[in-house]
């Protein structure tokens, strides 16, 4: 196998996309010609606020380790965990090690870990103390000096949103927000980014007093998924789909983001949020915008985000009075999912007994532009549904004359459906109709399928890996911009207002307001089926 020796990074080259910066390197370094430019970015000190929490342990640290494993982290890259819990550097490293062992998608290698762990540090402190942030600034400078991080700083808000403002205000106060000479400073903000339009605007206004928009990376991990990015490639790298990607050929679109778990021990948090805020405002509207946007002039941060914003602006704002006609909300009742009994939402710990927080939302969304006028986008998301699945399904119009129509139910069979499966079993399928072999004309639907696994032989990498690498490289294409967040919240806040109106009306009439329910392990409430049935359609069976 002598001549075939090959370093790990070359085998796992999926993420090694050439960039403008990489192209410049290739032009200047004569040895780079003909080699893929592996995007490793600059060394930096990354401060994770909320480093003792679940997000850091389950996602961020394992993703950073995976990048180190693939040699995509630059030498000198340093992680400084910051949280209230009083850990030492060693204790933090041990937690990180456990997180990697449990959640990393690559093999744990002691040697890689040793090298990675040398760059892990921890500092305990509150989020609202300027003195502690002064100490933090000093520690960052020391680490920068010791590990040659070139004055590059990356701050990651992996805390509850309630402390975002305190953290960023203190970063500004101790002069950590302004890039140091020769370096860069970036801020990553996790969702939820506000809980309605007013709070999102207030948070944006606050952040933009301290940071420049270009420094802020609002993360929606859905955009880091290969399959979500592939929606753009599928649409704009194939000549055959874009001409029929419009109201002339598309009947309607269904987007499903289903979770099989209930709220579990997150009831206290979830009850203040709900499915609309938790899933629709971000993940589902991102899927809508990528599916429906106009072609960008280039695949760069500005051009892509401009088109996404244009699309979001085209979503029809609902008047509060018409919200019940276009949306359905519900809570799960007790039921069985994957053989396991789930209590009703109202029985979950931390949930108010009279809660009207929705665990399921369906929304008939309309886009008011030339391309999509008259084509409804049906969105649904929920907890305690039969299985975890995310997909975008494009239903094409039926053939104008059904030559082979023999039975009523066959009309449904002969509608072409293009399904883009985001997770699991990532891939794309196209349902077409064929004649069953035999003397009679019986039409049978069959699927033409593409699976990542069968074409590429490997499971796509974790979204956080890609997104963290993009932040280190300063590529904001897969992050949401201020205007994008606010337009999405504007449309969602209209629904929240409509629901509030509905509840106030019930109270004014002396009625107790209760949400519809659906049995855990089923595909949602009857009302959601009726939402589509009114249009002569039904939800896709998944």
């Amino acid at each position, binding site marked *: *196998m*002598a*001549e*075939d*020796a*090959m*370093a*790990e*990074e*070359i*085998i796992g080259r999926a993420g090694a996309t050439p960039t403008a910066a990489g192209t410049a*390197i290739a032009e*200047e*370094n*004569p*040895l*780079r*010609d*003909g*080699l893929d430019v*592996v995007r490793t970015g600059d060394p930096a000190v990354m401060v994770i606020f909320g480093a003792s929490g679940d997000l850091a342990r389950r996602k961020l640290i394992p993703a950073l380790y995976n990048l180190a*494993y693939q*040699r995509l982290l630059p*030498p000198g890259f340093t992680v400084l965990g910051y949280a209230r819990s009083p850990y030492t550097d060693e204790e933090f490293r041990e937690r990180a090690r456990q997180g990697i062992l449990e959640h990393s998608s690559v093999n744990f*290698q002691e*040697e*890689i870990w040793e*090298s990675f762990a040398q760059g892990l540090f921890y500092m305990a402190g509150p989020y609202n103390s300027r003195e502690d942030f002064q100490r933090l600034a000093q520690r960052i400078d020391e680490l920068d000096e010791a590990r040659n991080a070139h004055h590059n700083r990356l701050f990651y808000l992996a805390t509850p949103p309630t402390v975002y403002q305190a953290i960023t205000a203190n970063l500004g106060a101790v002069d950590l927000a302004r890039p140091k000479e020769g370096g860069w400073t970036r801020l990553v903000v996790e969702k939820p980014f506000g809980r309605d339009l007013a709070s999102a605007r207030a948070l944006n206004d606050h952040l933009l007093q301290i940071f420049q928009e270009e420094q802020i990376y609002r993360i929606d991990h859905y955009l880091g998924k290969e399959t979500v990015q592939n929606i753009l490639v599928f649409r704009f790298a194939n000549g055959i789909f874009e001409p029929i990607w419009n109201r002339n050929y598309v009947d309607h679109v269904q987007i499903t983001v289903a979770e099989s778990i209930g709220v579990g021990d997150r009831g206290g948090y979830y009850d203040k949020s709900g499915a609309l805020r938790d899933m629709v405002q971000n993940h589902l509207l991102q899927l809508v915008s990528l599916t429906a946007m106009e072609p960008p002039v280039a695949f760069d941060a500005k051009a892509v985000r401009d088109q996404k914003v244009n699309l979001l602006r085209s979503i029809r704002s609902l008047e509060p009075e018409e919200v019940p006609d276009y949306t359905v909300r519900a809570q799960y009742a007790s039921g069985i999912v994957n053989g396991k009994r789930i209590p009703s939402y109202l029985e979950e710990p931390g949930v108010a007994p009279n809660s009207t927080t929705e665990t399921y939302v369906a929304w008939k969304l309309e886009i008011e532009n030339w391309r999509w006028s008259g084509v409804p986008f049906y969105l649904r998301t929920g907890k305690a549904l039969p299985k975890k699945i995310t997909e975008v399904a494009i239903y094409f119009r039926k053939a104008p004359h059904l030559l082979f129509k023999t039975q009523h139910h066959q009309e449904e069979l002969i509608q072409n459906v293009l399904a883009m499966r985001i997770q*699991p*079993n990532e891939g794309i399928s196209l349902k077409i109709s064929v004649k069953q072999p035999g003397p009679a004309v019986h039409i049978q639907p069959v699927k033409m*399928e593409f*699976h*990542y*696994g*069968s*074409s*590429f*032989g*490997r*499971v796509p990498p974790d979204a956080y890996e890609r997104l963290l690498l993009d932040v280190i490289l300063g590529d904001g294409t897969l992050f949401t911009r201020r205007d994008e967040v606010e337009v999405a919240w504007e449309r969602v806040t209209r629904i929240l207002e409509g629901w509030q109106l509905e509840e106030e009306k019930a109270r004014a009439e002396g009625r107790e307001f209760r949400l519809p329910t659906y049995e855990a392990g089923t595909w949602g409430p009857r009302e959601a089926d009726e939402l589509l049935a009114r249009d002569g359609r039904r939800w896709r069976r998944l």
Partner: protein
Amino acid sequence: MTNPQANPQTEPQQADQQITQLVEQVLSGRPQPVDVEQIEQALDELWRQVAAAQASPEQPVPELSITRAHAVNMVVFVKEPAQQERVDQALKDLALNKPARAIVLVEQEAVESPEGAAPPDDRDQEGQAGLQAWIATLCHRPDPSWPYVCSERITIAAPRPVIAELHSAVVSLFVSDVPNVLWWCAPLPEEMEELHLFSHLARNVDLLVFSAAVFRNPLKDLQRLRALAQEEEPRPPAISELIWLGIHPWREMVARPFDDPENRALLPYIESVTVRYVAGGDVRQPQFQPVAPALLVAWLAERLSWQTVMPLRFSPQGIGACEFAAEFQPYVSVELIPAALPGAAPGTIIGVELNAHRVGPGRDAGGRFRMERLGDGSWVRTLVRIQGQVRLERIAQFRGATVGELLAQVVGQLAPDAIFLQVLEKLDEMQRPA
């Protein structure tokens, strides 16, 4: 092969047994002898049975949750019996990364029945004298929650006189709309039959892959590849070679320190290069000359515009030496030093060191760039010293890629590799007498 679902009279027990046999046959990948003229039909029948078993409402067969996939047609020509095992393993590894319809052509003197296979009927039929064929599946699960991904392997064995005519059988077996690749896992064709087969197949593929490791005189024969690539009529497909692909990570490791502009400033001042490699036999014999180190040096020389001053020569101890002239460095000395790495095959590169020295009033600078495999070879350390100070030290994993992984990598590109051809030209220059 019978269809367990087709006969309504089949007893349930028999049907179960047949399905068990079907599952075993598909997932084991055991070759089945078939008539050469019936290969496609036999494969169709196999997949039809699988589909029938999958569709059976009474007897769902979870083991037969299978996706049949073809991302490439991979034709392999094998001449030496010793190469068969290597090819078998390579195709299994390729299937993990790129499901392929593999069509393996073997000279009959060189083949026995594939491992575990029953011999085919010993019969000669008109037009296919002496041809033997087997079909097998290559299945794997990318993830435990995913269905099996299965592709196919077809083996055709033929005696030498018939080899020349094999191309027609091969082309008819191509799956449409996927790239066609020919991996010529044999010395470069010289005999008439092989030349005929090669030229016909080359016209029908998008990529030719060679293994210089099995060439009779690898360093010289690589020049024939260059000549082949430069032919005008017929225009050849893209050409690649496995040893060249295998040194990709070394190119990457050597290039990476020079992404830093301060290090890059020393590139024109490299004065010596040492490549350590695993020694094989007597390097004065052409077949034992270390190809990978020579290609790596040729790549450096080509990229840095070095001109050969003293051609590559090997001492009886296996030490290779040559000299170049660079724009700012009149002598760049290069040494290829044999060394040991347990378990590594002869020719394997185990370390590269570049030394640079820039002189001038107020601009004296020296740099040492060292990349070496550590311990059992699973790790590689990059050490950069500038002016005697450690500027970068990094340890990363290094593992041997299989031939199948290299094939999957090159199949994913398919474009002509201009750098490879330039490197071959430099290699030619390095071997010419001064």
